[in-house]
């Protein structure tokens, strides 16, 4: 029977998930100001994330997908990817915002229920990155939607992405509001 050694291995092996560096205080501070007390109560310490690709080269997607692997294990922080913007608290947007994707992104944002945030992941999403100035792009997500947090990098590493998303969580767990019990 080959199952027994596997079970034993699974029982005694330490998990692969790694500790993550804490998010920088300045970022948390800035985000906390944007999160109203009501929003904090309603969401607790969990965020549902909908990723929207607005014309990226797919490098950012590779690293975002790596967040779900056993090393980074996003769900242990209460962060999870959902299949529809209607189920999301956060839109995680990559790419320089190609003109061909603008309407689709705006529609996804419109059907995301309040309270909601928008995170621009990667240098392209921040200001167009290397594609800045092309006839086919809008030079960053800020040209269409109110961005709450920018995670730089080309592409941002999973650690940088986690740091940014945890900053959103930290801001929610901040000191001011009376927590819902």
């Amino acid at each position: 029977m080959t199952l027994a050694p596997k079970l034993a291995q699974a029982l005694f092996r330490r998990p692969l998930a790694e500790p993550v560096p804490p998010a920088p205080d300045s970022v948390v501070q800035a985000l906390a100001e944007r999160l109203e007390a009501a929003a904090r109560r309603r969401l607790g310490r969990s965020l549902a994330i909908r990723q929207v690709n607005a014309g990226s080269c797919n490098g950012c997607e590779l690293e975002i997908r790596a967040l779900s692997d056993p090393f980074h294990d996003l769900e242990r922080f209460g962060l999870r990817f959902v299949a529809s913007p209607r189920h999301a608290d956060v839109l995680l947007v990559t790419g320089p915002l190609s003109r061909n994707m603008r309407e689709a992104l705006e529609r996804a944002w419109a059907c995301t229920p309040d309270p909601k945030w928008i995170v621009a992941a990667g240098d392209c999403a921040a200001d167009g990155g290397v594609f800045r100035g092309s006839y086919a792009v809008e030079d960053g997500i800020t040209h269409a939607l109110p961005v709450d947090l920018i995670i730089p990098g080309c592409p941002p590493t999973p650690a940088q992405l986690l740091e940014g998303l945890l900053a959103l969580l930290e801001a929610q767990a901040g000191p001011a509001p009376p927590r819902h019990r």
Partner: protein
Amino acid sequence: MSAADRFPNGAAAECRPWPRHLLDPARWAALAADDSLTLLSLWAEPGLVHAAFLAEGGLLLASCPAPEGRYPALSPARPGAPLFERMIHDLWGLSAEGGVDPRPWLDHGRWGLVAPLSGRPVQTMLPPPQPEFLPAEGEGLHQMPLGPVHGGVTEPAHFRFHLQGEAVLRLEARLGYAHRGIIGLMLGKSPRSAARFAARIAGDSTVAHAWAFAMAAEAAAELVPPPRALVLRAVMAELERIHNHLRSWGAICEAAGLAWPHARCAVLREGVLRACAAAFGHRLMMDRVVPGGVSGDIAPGGAAAILSALEAVAVEIPELAGLCETHAGLRNRITGIGIVTAELAARLGAGGPIGRASGRGFDARRLPGQAPYDELDPVVPVLPEGDVGARLRIRISELRESIRLVPALLARLPEGELRLSLPQRAGEGIGMVEGFRGECLHWMALDDGGLIRAVFPRDPSWLQYPLLEAAMQGGSAADFPLCEASFGCAVSGVDL
């Protein structure tokens, strides 16, 4: 038949390493009917259309003038040509006379410009038109739209299904959502400064595209890159193949409903990416390949990190690969689904694991003179079945072969320079590099100042999307995620 026999009186332009033949419209149209040639790419510059065919012994390049914006279409005889012809119309404003599909492709009517690369782009204020899809007829038909915002973390594409119950009568992909205007950004820049766009055509094939781009630039400027740079490029290209094949392997198992191999492949892949970061300073090795050589050396201890990560992969492969043969549930899902016939794969010239799983064994690494692979004799697996399982097994075989190649390359890493500067001169060149999806084909023409006058980077996905559509025909809509995972095409590579 050699090119000289084919075009006895034709004028040839100095493109390296293969000359480009200037044809009149009649000879151009005759090429379309030549069964000994496989169409690999079709592109344009203002007033001129170019095609690259795979012929015996290498590439055959041909050009045809397009006076008054028209040229004879290749699409009636070439199933790979329609997407290119639609793209040429959208970007350069040249129409394929007698083409099978005049609908726009990359242009969704949102750029504020018509034919942005034509030299005289026209501004437009028209509202974007409604997309048109090919019709399907039958009783009880319905349509299912999917995308461009998908359920998973993926690229933006729209898929339109015509369904009869569960069965797919027709699937059509509509791309262009990720069009960033890469060719427009490259024009007028030096190859060195345009290389960052080539590295971002498709982030997962950044090394292969950057290498093919560099190869075209070096051929155009007649520069031979230093041997150390060539071996480092090949090390990076094989690492890219390894981490992407691990990702595809996991994705196929996940789409088939088996989570455990997906998690294991993700762990192994992360180990490889960290070794890449330790050796080359970037997890995906972006911007490491530049025209003239490589931008930096392998870090001290980098080779050891790579070898130990690959050792970890090699140890787990037998057990994971055994699942394809022993796990009844997985076997059931991957067998006989999403079949691409050998005949269709050959007609479309599909490259990479998709072509090789359907009996087409082309691999750019085996082209004559493809340093440094010419000394290594890479083994190219080929299977006849053409289903999801065959595409998975091809990837596993290629993964094993790449794990053999990387230590062999590192062992023969020569000392010497990393980068030479590109001479500033006119020239024209073409470069072909085998990425994990298939061959990346870059063509480039430089002006007298060494700046890019015309360029076209062709991703292998151009010839693979029509096969995905064909593979889904008659299948079940619920098999689409599995079939798509086994293809693994790049939206960004086609969208440019």
